[in-house]
């Protein structure tokens, strides 16, 4: 299911209402648990409106799934946490306003790890989402529902959010395309924060073209996000079948210990294929990569510990029986409302920011982040893309890693450095390990989404993946 295919169906006489009905039918019979809240009424109403007045806008009549971390007016938004049970936002995120303005039809909210803290979509309060390629396996995370919904043919497009790999990881595990934009390219207004200084909303689709189209819709300056910046081009227009100017850097640190052999082989195969298509490559080094995970988790947990303080049950969200004094009331709401992984990260973040430890952890992490960012800027002077495996291994079994928090954190080894550097990165399918898809990560210069998308596009068109 892709955008062109849907447009063709609609042109051949199928109504948007029929399409949307069939989508809901499919979701309701699906085993993927990709959607956690459906917006049936508003989606059908919008579908009928498009049928009546014709499809307008860049995404007229095109269905889309939205990660449950993105604020949707009138549609329950919970970050798949019990603490936000029943919260129906009175406002739309910037990206939702953009989607609506371009005629997209919001199908519902997709499953995710609670507050985007995870690599497997197993910590959702709605239960784990499943990988369409093997239902016993995870779809990756934290935007697992979005990736699974696209891979499972439930929607052609979906939005996720990527703090340390949460778009690219599930894209890789589910064999779809997922992009983490340059920090600041897409407004975060309305994205429920996990780690503000790292995250971006990113598009998922079955192919590169649709990802570029969706990026065109959601990107650009928004005055309500102080970290938002102006975009430089329209991405779909920049896609052309030419990589002769593409100079690939292959950072050796991303092919290190713990990388599955099949994954390594597949990605090298991808690089060689691109070379055959006209690109060139050199092996390079990003020396501070080994510190990325520590830096990432310190920053993310610290910011999260503060971001998640607001869920006190006064203005929205979970409230327990009878109120006690306010300390006890708040403490019991959080005890009941947050899952174990969320509590773990809040406690660690609280520790990292507490008196006497700020310098050792948070401030030090911000400084090492500067070094990591410089590595990328330096490497991307002589190259214009970097290519690595997205994930060190293909999708694992549900329940396989959930008992060992640290082991699960280490799975983000190749994705977190990109968020630290703020650069864009896209994961494209590049072969299989058995039945399971493998993802190749293409990283670019700040705001040069055009080049990484074009590289992915050429790779996809010429038999990659």
């Amino acid at each position, binding site marked *: 299911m892709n955008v062109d295919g849907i447009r063709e169906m609609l042109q051949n006489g199928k109504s948007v209402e029929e399409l949307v009905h069939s989508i809901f039918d499919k979701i309701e019979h699906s085993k993927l648990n990709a959607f956690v809240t459906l917006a049936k009424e508003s989606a059908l109403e919008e579908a009928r409106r498009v049928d009546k007045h014709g499809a307008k806008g860049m995404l007229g009549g095109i269905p889309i799934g939205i990660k449950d971390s993105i604020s949707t007016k009138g549609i329950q938004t919970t970050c798949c946490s019990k603490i936000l049970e029943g919260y129906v936002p009175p406002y739309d995120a910037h990206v939702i306003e953009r989607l609506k303005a371009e005629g997209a039809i919001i199908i519902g909210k997709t499953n995710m790890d609670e507050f985007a803290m995870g690599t497997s979509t197993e910590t959702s309060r709605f239960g784990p989402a499943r990988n369409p390629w093997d239902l016993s396996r995870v779809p990756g995370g934290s935007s697992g529902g979005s990736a699974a919904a696209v891979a499972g043919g439930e929607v052609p497009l979906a939005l996720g959010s990527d703090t340390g790999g949460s778009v690219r990881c599930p894209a890789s595990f589910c064999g779809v395309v997922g992009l983490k934009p340059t920090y600041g390219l897409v407004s975060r207004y309305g994205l429920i924060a996990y780690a503000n200084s790292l995250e971006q909303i990113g598009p998922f689709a079955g192919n590169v073209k649709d990802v570029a189209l969706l990026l065109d819709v959601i990107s650009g300056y928004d005055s309500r996000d102080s970290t938002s910046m102006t975009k430089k081009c329209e991405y779909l227009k920049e896609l052309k079948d030419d990589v002769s100017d593409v100079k690939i850097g292959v950072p050796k640190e991303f092919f290190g210990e713990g990388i599955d052999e099949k994954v390594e082989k597949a990605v090298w195969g991808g690089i060689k294929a691109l070379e055959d298509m006209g690109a060139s490559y050199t092996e390079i080094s990003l020396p501070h990569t*080994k510190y990325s995970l520590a830096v990432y988790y310190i920053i993310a947990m610290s910011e999260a510990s503060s971001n998640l303080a607001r869920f006190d049950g006064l203005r929205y969200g*979970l409230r327990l029986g009878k109120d006690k*004094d306010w300390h*006890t009331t708040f403490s019991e709401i959080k005890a009941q409302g947050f899952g174990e992984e969320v509590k773990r990260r809040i406690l660690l973040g609280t520790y990292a920011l507490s008196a006497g430890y700020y310098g050792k952890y948070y401030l030090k992490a*911000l400084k090492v982040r500067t070094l990591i960012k410089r590595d990328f800027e330096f490497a991307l002077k002589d190259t214009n893309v970097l290519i690595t495996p997205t994930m060190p291994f293909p999708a694992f079994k549900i329940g396989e890693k959930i008992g060992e928090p640290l082991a699960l954190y280490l799975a983000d080894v190749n994705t977190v450095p990109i968020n630290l550097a703020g650069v864009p990165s896209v994961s494209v399918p590049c072969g299989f390990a058995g039945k399971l898809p493998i993802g190749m990560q293409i990283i670019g210069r700040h705001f040069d989404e055009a080049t990484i998308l074009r590289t992915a596009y050429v790779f996809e068109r010429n038999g990659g993946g």
Partner: protein
Amino acid sequence: MITKKTVDHLGWLARIKLTEEEKEKFPDQLNSILDYFEKLDEVEADVSPTHHVLGLTNVFRDDVAGQSISQEDALGNAPRKERGYFKGPRII
């Protein structure tokens, strides 16, 4: 080094009432993660901290009053309310 007592204090700071079981389990888990963070001690980072990854500064809004949301919308998600106010627990 995080002890049971540290976990207890962190729970207080974060206003999360932890169960006995959590207080027993968390110290080891958190310590293994902190051990991993020790890696950073080996880096000499004589550089400025990254505040905004692209070095953005001075982002301002004009002092213009805009539309607020309605009282109904403001209170729409409040589990408890009274006479246009949010209703909260007692203070002392």
